[in-house]
C-alpha cells in the first residue's frame, strides 16, 4: 500500500543518517575562534606560546588552551595580576574524549572585579597524566582536584592530600569516568558486593586519623 511504502522510505532515510565519524576529534577543533577578550590578549602577551588557541563556545564563553606544564604559573598570574584578578575558581574538572585522545583538565575562572569569565584547558597525554596543583592559589581547589584524581587518575603535583574522595580508599577497579571504564564497573556485582562488605575497620580510617589512636600508646583498636 502507498502508506506502507512511504513508511518504508522514511525508515530508509532514518538508517542512512550519517554516523558520527569516530576518527575525527570532536571537541578540540570545534568552536569558532572569535574575537579575543582582553584577558586572553593579556595572557598571550605575558606567556606567549604557552597559550595555544582561543575559541568561543556555547553562549559567548571564552575558552583558552594552555600548556599543561605552565598551568600553575598562568593560573597564578591570572589570580594575582592587577587587572585580571580572577578570584573565583568556579570549577576544576576534566574531560575524556575517548579513543586514546588526551585528557583535558578544565579550569573555570570568574573575576567579579572585571566581570570576566574564562575557561582554561590543559591537555594531558594518556601516558603522562600529571599536572601541577593549584591548591596554593585557591584553597578551594583541594577537593576539586581530589575528585579529578579519583575519577580520571590525573595526579596533581603538590597537592597536600591527594587520595580518593568519592570512591572507597581501596577501590581497585580503576578510574570511573575514563572512557575505557565500563558503566557497570570491571568486577561482577557479586565481587563488588563481596569487596564492599569485606572491609576491615582500619580501612575506614586514613593513616593520619589512625595516628591519633596510636599516639595514645595503645595499639590501634576497633573504634
Amino acid at each position: 500500500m502507498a502508506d506502507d511504502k512511504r513508511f518504508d522510505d522514511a525508515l530508509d532515510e532514518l538508517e542512512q543518517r550519517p554516523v558520527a565519524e569516530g576518527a575525527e576529534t570532536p571537541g578540540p577543533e570545534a568552536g569558532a575562534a572569535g574575537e579575543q577578550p582582553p584577558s586572553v590578549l593579556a595572557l598571550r602577551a605575558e606567556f606567549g606560546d604557552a597559550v595555544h588557541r582561543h575559541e568561543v563556545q556555547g553562549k559567548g564563553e571564552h575558552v583558552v588552551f594552555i600548556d599543561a606544564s605552565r598551568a600553575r604559573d598562568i593560573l597564578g598570574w591570572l589570580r594575582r595580576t592587577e587587572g585580571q584578578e580572577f578570584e573565583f575558581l568556579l570549577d576544576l574538572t576534566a574531560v575524556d574524549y575517548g579513543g586514546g585522545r588526551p585528557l583535558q583538565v578544565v579550569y573555570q575562572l570568574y573575576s567579579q572585579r572585571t566581570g570576566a569569565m574564562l575557561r582554561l584547558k590543559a591537555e594531558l597525554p594518556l601516558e603522562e597524566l600529571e599536572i601541577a596543583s593549584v591548591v596554593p592559589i585557591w584553597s578551594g581547589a583541594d577537593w576539586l582536584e581530589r575528585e579529578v584524581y579519583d575519577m580520571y587518575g590525573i595526579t596533581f603535583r603538590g597537592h597536600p592530600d591527594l587520595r580518593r574522595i568519592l570512591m572507597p580508599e581501596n577501590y581497585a577497579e580503576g578510574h570511573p569516568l575514563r572512557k575505557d571504564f565500563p558503566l557497570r564497573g570491571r568486577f561482577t556485582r557479586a565481587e563488588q558486593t563481596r569487596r564492599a562488605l569485606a572491609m576491615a575497620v582500619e580501612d575506614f580510617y586514613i593513616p593520619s586519623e589512625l595516628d591519633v589512636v596510636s599516639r595514645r600508646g595503645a595499639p590501634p583498636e576497633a573504634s
Partner: protein
Amino acid sequence: MGVGAPEWVTTQLDFVVNWARRNSLWPMPFGTACCAIEMMASAASKYDLARFGMERMSFSPRQADLLICAGRVSYKMAPVLRKIWDQMPQPKWSISMGACASSGGVFDAYSMVQGIDTIMPVDVYVPGCPPRPEGLIHGILMLHEKIKGESVTDRELHRRLRAEDPETVGLPALPARSIDELAKPFGNSTTQNRPSGLVPDRALERPRDRKP
C-alpha cells in the same frame, strides 16, 4: 480443642506479643537520599507516623525494631548498612523503601548496590521513586500484617529469621550467583546501553533491518 488446651495459651500469647511488637515499631531511619525526605514527610504533620507509634525515630540501632532503608545505597555505604543491621537486636524487621533500595533503581552503574536484599534480609519492599508517604505507610501496614502472622512457637520462623549465625555477620545475604542474576541489565532499552556518539549511535538494531 478445649479452652484449657496449651495451643490456646500460645495463640493468646502470640496475639499479645504481636500486638505489642507491631504497634510500637521504632524505626531506624536509614535515610540516604530523596526517599529520606519522603520519610521525613511521612513523619511530619500531614502523614503522621505517630499514629502508628512510630514517631520515635531511633537513630541508635540498639534501640530500634525496624530498619527503613530509604534511598540509594552505594558500595561504600554497604558495609555501614550491614553493620547497622547487625547491630539491631532481634526481633527486627526491615523495609526497603524506594526503587533504589529495592533493586538499584535508575542507578545501574559501577558504584550502586543493586538492591539491599543482596546485603541484608528485607521484609517489605516499597516501590516508587520516591514512594509517596501513603506508599510508605502502606508498606508499614503490610509489615504489621506480616507481624500479625508470626508465632512465638514457630521454630521454622525462629530458625530462619530470628536466630542469627555469627558466622554470617558482615557477609552478603545472597549467594554470589543470585546477586549476579538479579543485577543483570534487563529489558530491551534501545539507548541506555550505548555511550555517547563516538560510537555509532543507531537506535534501531534489529536483525532484519536492512543495512545501507
